[in-house]
């Protein structure tokens, strides 16, 4: 009967079938995008390999030139949409995760630091965070993407700036609560180094709300990246992410060539919705107020 917290968490998680399926989908998408170079019929970033004669073909088109079956059609440059989606997912996940991890580290450090220090520094940091949070993330990201220019790391920087504040506030809230508890006071009065107390005692207790914020924010980063790319402020055109694929397909949509925009969009939604569903279940499980 003695089960680790992870095993116990999983046994509760398992009850929600939808969340389990969502988790499986996320895992599948991640694996598929990782192995994309080996399973796609075409490298969509290799401009030399694209045939303009194969451009804008509907789903199921078999190219007489390359012999490739384009299950989801081709885009305006003759890219296989399926290959482009898998490569695009790769980019989306990479950017979403990097931004999520960096924003997490930055925000959590800042938030716990502020809670631990207390006093004026805490007030100053949190005031700034609140100020930033009152600004819509998309606007910040938009301006930053415009300021920094195109490129993968510029984009990550814009996303991190737009999102670290959520982590900081959550971490600060949880850490400030923990900080005021007796056991932390007790731990601080021992010869333990303060940073040990923060790492060993305060931080682990802040994890549940942070995990919830993290799932939501990774999904948000992916959506935001796609939005910025759609607006032409994201990645360079040579390596289209999902957002840019959709943007490129927009002009063809009005003439009924839906597949260039719609399929990448569906891939994007399935990924984001699955992450959100997993996040929902995690949140319900970690919310003590809903436990009966």
């Amino acid at each position, binding site marked *: 009967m003695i089960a680790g917290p992870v095993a116990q968490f999983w046994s509760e998680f398992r009850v929600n079938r939808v969340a389990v399926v969502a988790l499986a989908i996320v895992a599948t998408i991640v694996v598929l995008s990782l192995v994309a170079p080996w399973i796609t019929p075409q490298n969509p970033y290799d401009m030399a390999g694209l045939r303009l004669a194969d451009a804008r073909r509907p789903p199921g088109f078999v190219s007489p030139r390359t012999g490739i079956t384009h299950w989801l059609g081709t885009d305006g440059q003759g890219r296989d949409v399926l290959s482009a989606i898998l490569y695009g997912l790769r980019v989306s996940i990479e950017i979403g995760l990097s931004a999520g991890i960096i924003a997490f580290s930055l925000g959590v450090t800042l938030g716990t630091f502020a809670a631990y220090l207390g006093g004026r520094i805490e007030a100053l940091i949190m005031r700034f965070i609140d*100020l930033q949070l*009152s*600004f*819509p*993330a*998309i*606007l910040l990201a*938009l*301006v*930053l993407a*415009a*300021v920094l*220019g195109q490129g993968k790391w510029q984009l990550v920087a814009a996303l991190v700036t737009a999102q670290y504040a959520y982590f900081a506030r959550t971490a600060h809230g949880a850490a400030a609560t923990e900080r005021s508890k007796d056991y932390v006071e007790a731990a601080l009065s021992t010869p333990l180094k303060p940073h040990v107390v923060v790492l060993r005692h305060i931080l682990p207790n802040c994890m549940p709300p942070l995990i919830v914020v993290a799932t939501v924010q990774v*999904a948000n980063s992916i*959506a935001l990246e*796609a*939005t910025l790319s*759609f*607006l*032409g*402020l994201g990645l360079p055109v040579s390596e289209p992410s999902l*957002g840019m694929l*959709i943007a490129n397909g*927009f002009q063809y*949509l*009005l003439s*009924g060539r*839906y597949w260039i*925009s*719609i399929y990448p*969009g569906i891939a*994007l*939604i399935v990924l*984001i*919705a699955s*992450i*959100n*569903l997993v996040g*929902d279940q995690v949140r319900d499980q970690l919310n003590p*107020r*809903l436990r*009966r």
Partner: protein
Amino acid sequence: MLGFIIQRLLQAVVVMMIISVLVFCGVYAVGNPIDVLISPDATQQIREEAIRTYGLDQPLWKQYLDFVGRLVQGDFGRSFVFGSPVLPLILSRLPATLELTLVAVVGATLVGVPLGMYAGYKPDSLAARAIMGISILGFSVPTFWIGLVLIFIFAVQFGILPAGSRGETRELFGISWSVLTANGWQHLFLPALNLALFKFAMMVRLARAGTREIMLTDTVKFARAAGESEATILRRHVLRLIAIPIVTVFGLEFGSTLAFAVVTETIFSWPGVGKLIIDSINTLDRPVMVAYLMLVAFFFILVNLTIDIVYVALDPRLRLRAAS
């Protein structure tokens, strides 16, 4: 109460000053606008003349001081691209955006809150699951893609609604409104729906979570024990209790919806400020960007101030604290 408002107003002024510095620094780091303004094969003389005209030869701090000085007088400078003063340019585009945003946020709230309350009241019912499904979708589907799908379905496939632009408007108080004409509503419907979906999802979640928690409280049990009907409990007790977070989010979301209108306006070529800012980012039209950001910041602070005051009006427990 008055002291509370004055204190908040002072805070707002300080915040505006900080933002003006940040915005100025941020925006003036964007590329070199002169490259965009003049064709690359222009003579050196034309180039320098343009730089002088736009004050780009001054040191940054001087440019900032000039900028603040002009701001205070309501002069946001001239658009590099349009050559006209920025403030009237933005103000002329503002009604379209405000109208779109208002219709979207109000619609999302009016539909989302009752549905969310129902989903929280009967969380295991089929209808509740359907509502939550739609809300998850509204949350997960990027706004721009929904816009594309809406255009594809309603404009391309069925051809029943226009794909873009504003349609007929009618003047009221000297401003053009789409909501006053049938044709205007036709044009407004898709972009407003597009913009509303995310807010709808958010309202549903908020109302559901609030209702679920409140239905478990003793307040509801006590009302039930007094024989009050479920409808009364939902309308009088639950709605009043969830109103506080909903008003907060309504206000905050109104601001962020203004920001998201950027995306919707781009897709539906809605002639609002959102489209203007994207165009100006792409053309590095600095004065427009600065003015837009300052106005949005101003707007946000106004909204936050209003929320704080409404909050106090809604939650009697806070009145004591506000008074002291």
